């Protein structure tokens, strides 16, 4: 194996979900299908590498700055969804259920990791809200202890800013069976019960 191919294999093996063995399989696949797999992959990687940027408005990662979501005129500018990480933004946007724009905090408050408010883009969020035009902020943090602590902290910082601060519902997941749910989830589901429509 040439050193270039070896370098490619090693680079792929460092990706999440891949190890040395699966990286070799991927490389062999690319080499066998040079025109249909390797060349398009190289082109796509080069295009992303050339234009990769972090959106100065929302913190999303895109090949444009501001990102495609922030510049999309069809988006509802009065609604803002705050998420912990870019992965959360992509997950929410994949569902196409949220019509507004986003704000990526860049993590969550964590006493363990020494992550305080100064390491998150909370001031940038407050700045966006202070500019006006936003009526509702949805805090879409993970339903973990750190996620919820962050959510409460951000909600406190947004208090008095003249926006409605919302959080995601917690409870029965779609496809969830009662027998397999933990007490905390069941308690939340009961607390958030509503009339049958």
């Amino acid at each position, binding site marked *: 194996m040439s050193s270039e191919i070896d370098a490619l294999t090693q680079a792929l093996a460092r990706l*999440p*979900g891949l190890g040395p063995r699966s990286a070799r399989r991927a490389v062999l696949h690319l080499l066998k299908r040079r025109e249909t797999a390797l060349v398009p992959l190289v082109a796509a990687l080069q295009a992303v590498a050339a234009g990769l940027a972090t959106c100065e408005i929302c913190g999303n990662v895109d090949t444009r700055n501001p990102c495609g979501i922030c510049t999309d005129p069809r988006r509802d500018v009065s609604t803002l969804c705050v998420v912990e990480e870019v992965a959360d933004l992509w997950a929410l946007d994949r569902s196409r259920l949220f019509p507004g724009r986003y704000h990526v905090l860049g993590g969550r*408050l964590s*006493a*363990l990791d*020494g992550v*305080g*408010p100064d390491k998150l883009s909370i001031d940038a969020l407050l700045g966006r809200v202070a500019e006006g035009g936003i009526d509702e902020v949805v805090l879409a943090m993970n*339903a*973990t*202890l*750190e*996620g*919820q*602590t962050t959510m*409460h*902290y951000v909600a*406190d910082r947004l208090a008095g800013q003249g926006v409605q601060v919302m959080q995601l519902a*917690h409870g029965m997941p779609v496809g969830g069976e009662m027998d397999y749910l*933990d*007490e*905390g*989830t069941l*308690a*939340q589901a009961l607390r958030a019960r509503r009339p049958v429509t």
Partner: protein
Amino acid sequence: MHLTATALVLTALPHGEHGAVVRFLTPADGMHAGYVRGGRSRKIRPVLQPGNAVAVELRSRIDTQLAAATVELVTSRAGLAFDRLTAAITEYLATLTAAVLDEGTPAPRLHAALDALLDAMAAGTSPEQAAAGVARYELLLLAERGFGLDLDSCAATGAREDLIYVSPKSAQAVSAGAGAPYAAKLLPLPALLRDPRAAADWPDIAAALRTTGWFLERDLLTGAAASLRPARARLVALIDATGITTVAPQDAPG
């Protein structure tokens, strides 16, 4: 090592793509760390939230090796995450315990105290009791680590009554009479730190946290654990704010 226990989850750090290194507080054997295979999976991650009680089995060939751990949920404290104060308290106390406790040193009183406080918060105890529980737990943690406060008698006179100060130097109580000339230099000693059954109001809670905070920062939150100071400051600010909003205007002093 082969250890089975019903333990409290303190922290869970991601390790590799799917696993997690988890610190558990066991009732009889102190804190232990273990590698949980699949600890970041959708199924296991909710089980490894701080504060949850889990049936854990830790196995390692030698004591110095990181043990492999298997866990099963016994009591979920997930509901604590959805309240502002209980979430902050749970995260802080779990992280504090993991940061300052030595691994493998038995700490049955700490386990019992943390378990009881988590149970009380899950059962909906008042914000005052929850906040007072933080100060009491910090006091106990100081004692377990060998930095306990002597709150039974006055450092100057030996008196056992009217103890309202703590000396920041000797960590011993000081009576009202002996401490009066040095009041500005002494720390407050509210009744809730001496008597676990004493009623706790917000000024007393603030005073207790001031005292435990002083000793924590001097004796335990040093070195790597100093990174917990901002988290503690945020919790104390939240407790202060909760006290301000909980005291109705007609009840407020003055």
